């Protein structure tokens, strides 16, 4: 893992990534807050999206992703803060540009297909500036894209969930918006179709130079197609950056545990060593550890591929398998260590251990590890 560089005290005070490159930012949120009655859905969000990039909002359910997209589209008015599109303020204390004037397309989380129109008519809905033939051609093109040729004459209620989602996607792509907002656009699609479509969509976006903001709960999707990823938590921005940076250098415990099946090892920092329940390691294991920490308790981030478990006899073992999870290409064993920490170990199919079996867990990471002050 040659390129891995871990953050250090970032853990102590994650620095907000404000408007980065104002120059080529086409979309900017500045201190945006949205309240529904006493409920605050989005808090003081500042973020900028660069021209032509695909930014993905990642975050747990209910963290404010849909709300953010709706504000960008002009469907919801921020309670506070300013939104600008191409350097023009579209929502602020005194301005509000309506949705239809923003040139922003959106794929809704719940599709919102027009029930009174056929699939073709739905897709053609935004093609008001093309004449009949050109529009027809474009619709055919898009139906092909979403792998639904020949279904144009159905009505939305005659489609399966995934098919509806694909029509919603085709409908929003049709008029070639400058900015496209995608709210979990692939959530109802099977892996194969999802992978195909997201790459196809990415290709289209890139070719047309469309700037896009998408929402997904699929970490793999976020990491694999996005130019940058923004992680939200409870209405606040936790971290924004390119996928590798965010995955490899999570700035907060939240980000670390949200991306990937993170586990944490409790550790005591000694003067030269770091002591964990699976062994003592050199202090250099922990990236950027300042001197002052001697004696402190920390949580060390360990991902499934950082650890390996081997069956052992009761006496030597330092943990027990509590769950065995089959993911197809590999198994992930959940191991409860003697001190109660639960960590996960990734194994390719080879080993076959059973739940309840005593194991010895070893650290196999060849890179230094991120850590966070002990919680609670």
């Amino acid at each position, binding site marked *: 893992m040659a390129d891995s560089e871990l953050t250090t005290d970032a853990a102590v005070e994650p620095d907000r990534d404000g408007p980065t490159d104002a120059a080529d930012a086409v979309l900017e949120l500045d201190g945006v807050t949205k309240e529904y009655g006493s409920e605050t859905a989005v808090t003081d969000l500042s973020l900028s999206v660069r021209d032509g990039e695909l930014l993905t909002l990642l975050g747990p359910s209910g963290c404010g992703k849909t709300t953010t997209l709706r504000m960008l*589209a*002009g*469907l919801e008015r921020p309670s506070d803060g300013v939104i600008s599109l191409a350097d023009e303020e579209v929502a602020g204390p005194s301005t509000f540009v*309506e*949705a*239809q004037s923003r*040139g*922003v*397309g*959106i794929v*809704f989380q*719940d599709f*919102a*297909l*027009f*029930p*009174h*129109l*056929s699939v073709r008519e739905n897709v053609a*809905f*935004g093609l*008001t500036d093309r004449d009949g033939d050109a529009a027809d051609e474009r619709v055919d093109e898009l139906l092909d894209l979403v792998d639904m040729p020949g279904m144009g*004459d159905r*009505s939305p*209620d*005659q489609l399966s969930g995934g098919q509806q989602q694909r029509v919603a996607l085709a*409908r*929003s792509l049709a*008029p070639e*918006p400058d900015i496209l*907002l995608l709210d979990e656009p692939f959530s109802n699609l099977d892996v194969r179709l999802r992978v195909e479509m997201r790459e196809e969509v990415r290709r289209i976006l890139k070719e047309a130079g469309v700037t896009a903001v998408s929402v997904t709960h699929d970490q793999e999707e976020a990491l694999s197609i996005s130019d940058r990823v923004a992680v939200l938590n409870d209405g606040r921005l936790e971290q924004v950056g390119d996928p590798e940076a965010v995955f490899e250098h999570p700035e907060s415990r939240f980000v670390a545990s949200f991306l990937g099946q993170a586990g944490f090892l409790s550790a005591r920092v000694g003067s030269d060593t770091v002591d964990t329940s699976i062994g003592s390691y050199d202090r250099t294991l922990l990236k950027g550890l300042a001197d002052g920490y001697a004696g402190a308790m920390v949580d060390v981030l360990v991902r499934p591929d950082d650890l390996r478990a081997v069956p052992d006899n009761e006496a030597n073992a330092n943990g027990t398998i509590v769950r065995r999870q089959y993911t197809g290409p590999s198994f992930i064993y959940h191991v409860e260590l003697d001190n109660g920490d639960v960590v996960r170990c990734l194994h390719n199919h080879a080993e076959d251990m059973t739940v309840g079996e005593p194991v010895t867990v070893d650290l196999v990471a060849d890179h230094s590890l991120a850590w966070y002050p002990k919680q609670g």
Partner: protein
Amino acid sequence: MAARERLARLRTAVGGDDEPGLSLAVLAGAVAAFVSLPLLGLLVRASNYGFGHLVGLLTETGSLDVLVNSLVLVFWVTLGCVLVGVPLAVLTVQTDLPGRRFWTVVAALPLVVPSYIGAFTFVSAFGPQGDLADALAPLGVERIPAIYGLHGTALVLILFTYPYVFLTTRAALLSFDGTLVEAARTLNHSRWEAFKRVTVPQILPGVTAGALLAALYALSDFGTPSIMRYEVFTQQIYVAQRSLGVPEGYPALLSMQLLAVVAVVLALEARIGEGDASYVSRGSRQPGQITLGAWKWPALAFCASVATLALGVPLGVLAWWFEQAGQAVFEFEPVVAWNSLRVAAAAALAASLLALPVAGYAARSTSLFSTLTDRLTYVGYAIPGVVVALALLYLSTEFAQSLYKTVPLLVFAYVVRFLPQAVGTVRSSVLQVDPKLTEAARTLGRSPTGAFRNVTLPLIAPGVAAGAALVFLTTMKELPATLMLSPIGFETLVSYIWLVRGAGSYGAAAIPALVLVGVSALSMVVILAQERYNG
């Protein structure tokens, strides 16, 4: 894709191929049969006279002219009602119009003004020598546009029947899925374009349901055309049934002609309103309010002018007459208002209850039988009230003498006449309830009845309330059946108004007319409060 086809497919998709339970069909059929009794009476009476005469009637001098007159009137009234009712509904549901609740009640109220009173007051105010002409004369205005004839008749009928369209459109808008408008707007459609392309097609069933009621009203009304000097179809029937020694069944036979036209209108509506609201999804999100901005003023002016014409003119003129009549000291007995309120409430309740099976069945089934049951309920509404009353008098003397001229029979007559108003609104609300919700309830162990009670009913409550409001308001002002079927001594607001007007005491009619509008306004507030869920 033809709407019917789409509808059929949808229904197979959502409801399974199996038709709704047999019990619902039986219930709906029973209700339809029940309210078709007068039709049966009518047929029997007409056959006593002999259907052979029908051909002769059709070829009579002027028959065709009058038929054309009626159709032309129906056309303009329907169009006018849509042009007035739909904007008002949109303004009160989807915009930030100041005082929306107030305007909602005010916009619905003209329905309680009996159209013949409306016509009188209009003639009085706007006739060639009317008060307006008097007022304008000093200003050098010599002629004001003639109020008599087609335009006057159409104007008055529009002003007093547009609330049908207003109320049904409102119900449709209230249950409309706002996310769809959002989707259209993000596809670069202005609010207006989105309204045209998304909202309109989806509220169309609601609009046509109201337009149908207005059209059939225009067809069956006698008073207004007659006051406004426009010859229509119903005139013959009225004269016939008010003449001595008319051969038995003659008015009934005349009504058969009218029924033929009604059938055509119903078929026409079926084409336009087809598909009904079936594929309208009830949205979880209300469409964002339209901010009127400076348009607020023209919008307010529109609402105010409709209110002025449809409420201000009749009430103003009545009050003026009252003032003029000065010397007439009279007592107004509250029991009259109480009688009106009682029978109207009973009719509204009964009609809402009976409408549920018919509307539920029509909404969930595509069978011919369901269409038939649904359409049959409209017949009583389209036949002039006197004819219904005659048929009921006939039936009760023949088969149920203990009911003859009793309040229950009167309420039944109201139900026969106004049931479709409830059926129409309830049906569109049922169609707007996502069938998945009932399915969810059933998989959670609820019987179809339980699912109906706990899920469907609360969701269609606004539609049921709107239907009840329509029945209530129209019953309050119903005259012919009230006169003919009430027990002796049972007086209601309208029969009282009719009485004092007949005595030439137009002024004395002002108080009961004001009471009529006041009582109705209060009940409207109560009924509209039912819409809480839709806010």
